[in-house]
């Protein structure tokens, strides 16, 4: 039942350390070989890979889905101007979403660890209870954080609800923290010391970006304009939903969510305001989720057919 991906594993045992891009290549090739669509990051700012339509929307409804992709994830409040060895306002998640959740998903996951050159038998791999909730997306799930020798490297979640809608079938979501895994593999204590490829470090490529965006998020972003942006995008979402243009409407939801994160980083929100903004995003997310299922139904849930023909 459990076999390591021998080819990849043996190939990379020789190499002293796998670079960040190697890790991504091998996750892509591993999940690709397991039938995943290797999707791409979505070109709107977002807080996590879950926001990518390849997860948020595709987890809804009866159609099967299996995708893997890297997602740049923005958390403005976590910015530290590039000074903190462990915190970033933008980091990379590797996201896998499979619907319905396959019965051997834990084994597949462990195999994927092997694909990154880590023989899980020599390490202490643990599935530690951690349920997940996204108030803005109206989403909840049950699962674990996966520990590798005490370090959390993956969030492993069986979705139960998305956009306030009970899911049937249930999807499973794997979210790998790429920087942490790279730090583990390369034995680095500072995220900026990770080797991105054989010559450049993570810091060479991203450090300045952390500084500029931290400065922008914490000090420069105009509160007034962002409040206005939020209202505009919210209005646009509602217009688009009326026109049954669910996908563009969802872009607006992602934008609103990110704008809300910026307002929070600016310290512009009181507790009550914060709750109200979350509620507004959630309402939009729910309408989009309902609209998406309706639209797919109109199309006759086409992916069910293609999966059947497979």
């Amino acid at each position, binding site marked *: *039942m459990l076999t390591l991906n021998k080819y990849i594993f043996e190939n990379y045992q020789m190499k002293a350390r796998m670079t960040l891009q190697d890790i991504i290549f091998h996750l892509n090739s591993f999940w690709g070989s397991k039938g995943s669509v290797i999707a791409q990051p979505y070109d709107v700012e977002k807080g996590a890979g879950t926001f990518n339509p390849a997860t948020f929307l595709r987890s809804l409804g009866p159609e099967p889905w299996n995708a893997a992709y890297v997602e740049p994830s923005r958390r403005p409040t976590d910015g530290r101007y590039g000074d*903190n060895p*462990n915190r970033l306002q933008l980091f990379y998640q590797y996201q896998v979403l499979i619907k319905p*959740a396959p019965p051997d998903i834990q084994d597949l996951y462990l195999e994927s660890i092997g694909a990154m050159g880590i023989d899980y*038998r020599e390490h202490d*791999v643990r599935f*530690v*209870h951690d349920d997940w909730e996204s108030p803005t997306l109206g989403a909840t799930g049950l699962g674990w954080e996966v520990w590798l020798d*005490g370090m959390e490297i993956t969030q492993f979640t069986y979705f139960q609800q998305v956009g306030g809608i009970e899911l049937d079938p*249930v999807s499973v979501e794997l979210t790998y923290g790429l920087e942490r895994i790279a730090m583990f593999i390369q034995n680095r204590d500072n995220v900026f010391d990770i080797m991105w490829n054989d010559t450049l470090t993570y810091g060479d490529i991203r450090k300045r970006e952390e500084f500029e965006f931290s400065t922008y998020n914490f000090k420069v972003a105009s509160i007034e304009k962002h409040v206005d942006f939020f209202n505009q995008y919210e209005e646009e979402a509602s217009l688009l939903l009326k026109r049954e243009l669910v996908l563009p409407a969802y872009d607006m939801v992602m934008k609103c969510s990110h704008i809300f994160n910026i307002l929070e980083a600016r310290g512009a929100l009181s507790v009550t305001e914060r709750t109200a903004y979350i509620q507004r995003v959630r309402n939009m997310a729910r309408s989009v989720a309902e609209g998406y299922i309706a639209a797919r139904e109109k199309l006759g849930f086409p992916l069910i057919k293609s999966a059947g023909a497979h």
Partner: protein
Amino acid sequence: MSHRDLLVEIGIEENPHSFIQDAMSAFRALFTGGLEENKISFGSIQEFSTPRRMALYYRDVAVTQSDYIEEKRGPSVDKAYLPDGKPSKALLGFLKGSGVGLEDIQIRTTNNREYVFLSRKIKGRNSASILPGVLDSTLRSISFPKTMRWEESGFLFSRPIRWILFLFGTETIEFQIAHVKSANRTYGHRSYTDTDLTIKEPSAYERTLRDRNVIADRNKRKLRLMQQIGELTEKKGLSVPDIAAGLFDVNTDLTEYPNAVLCEFDSEYLCLPQEVLTSEMIEHQHYFPLTERATGKITHFFIAISNIENHSKTVNGYQRVLRARLDDGRFFFMEDKKNPFSEYTQRLNPVTFHEKLGSMYQKVGRIKSICSILAGMLSVSEETKKEILITAELCKNDLVSLMVNEFPNLQGIMGYYYAKESGFPETVSVGIREHYFPRFAADSLPKGIHGAVVGIADRLDTILGIFSIGLKPKGSKDPFALRRNVFAIVRIILSLRLNFSMKRLIDESMSLYSSKHLNTEEVESFFQDRIRSIFTEMNFSYDEIDASLSNVLDDVCEAYRRVDALHEFRKNPDFEDLLVSFKRMWNIIKDETVFSFSEELLSEDEERELFRYFAEIRESVKQNVKVKNYREVYSILSSFKPYVDKFFDHVLVMDEDPALRKNRIGLLRTIIEVFSEIIDISKIVSSRQSKTG
């Protein structure tokens, strides 16, 4: 063979560690109950649990159900037979419905009436045919704090079930739930086995798993973990502090094959407060912090529990994770100390306490006002009062520190360190820490008056504030935990024996709130109800509480001491009898409005003796009531017994002569009156009644 061993193992994806023990006892109780209900006999039971499995092993389970007598009541005899003795339609219907004939019935009497009874021996069925049903209803009935769906049948469980081992002797019992079919197979430890393991018979289960590095017996696993920790710490003269005691269970339920690994961190981090170090280790990582056995001081050693044996590659990981966390901790600590602690108060301004009650800064202002009133009511020196107000001023400051932001449970503790660092007196620093005590039912209480007064004021502010915006608790809804706040206030008062009028404190604090919804009587009755139920939880009986709690809000502490004294004396059966006699006195006189008393009118010896004795002790009772020595009062009351007994044996209170009657009522009233300040006799219920009522 009439008996076989039975084994059932549910294989699951890692069960949340905090669910395991409760789920296991439910599993055992439900399955065992199912066997009993179906009259399937069995011998001893053994249970196994790891994060990935829950298993029960029954020895000597009967292969068939026990034969049993089925009994069924039919119609009553008068309805079962016609006047000519032939069976009625009712009886024939009953026979037909049960599939039996006239020869199978008997007549028996129940409830003084004769009935037709069916009584027949039923042959037991094969246990194997019954077991699937028992397992099915067991798995559907185990409750978890949270459940999930994972496949299309929509079955709910804590985590996905992935295999079921169901063996009766060497036979696999067929069973299916949530698309999982039973088999005679299990799985070993992930790091040590690739394939499934066949279990030939139940007795091979534990050993087969042990060979694949799974210690399925939870107790053995915990013992192994404790022994290993014992060995590692023994060598170095270290020990596990009490605060980490819960980790033994946590780690037992997080592993199938626990291995204790001694690790260390750079001793430069020891400059951090001990609580910060232990929080980082315990809460996030489930690591055991270690202290020096001799001094109790925290050390730079810790123990991580690994799920595999060889730790050549894991130690580095455990240490690195902690180092990153301690780095964060040190950064927070240093940053927080850059500003004088007193400056933090201003920063509470943007922190909302409640949208309708303003900021934490405003809350602190009200806490100070209440402290000032309360300190005035308690006999504390001017110096102490000043310090209490400083404690109040600083008590919430650490909420805006980086450290408490990261570790909310360090609130108060960081305040202690930061206040000390900024040069405030120890009493103030300790008061900041203690004002949160008790944080939970078994928590310690403030030892100093500073923490006690600020703690009472903080909680009273929450209660009055929430009442003032119309959100008082209703039914089971108490989102602001106001009931628990009263409980904490009462415990603090009792532990430090604080004598003051809660009523006055409430009254005088009212002006701090907009009074739209605030009603003094409502708040007072909320307190009274709570105190009543707190005392009930302390195992005082209802009548003891009712009898002692008049004017409780005038002095909660004394009310408690009165109940307590009454409760203690009541354990003596003679005293209980006496209370009954006093209650009898009360019943005789309670409705009598016309009475008078004069010593000269005492005519019988027994009433004269009762009065003489009363006159003797009257002053002493008054004195003891005054100095609140309730036990002595009850001790004196006890000594009344022989006089009271004799009085009731020989004297008729309701004498025909109205003058004698009025006089006797007067005598009894005078006596009861003296004790009325500490006990309301009318509320006493004799012990037999109070137990059933």
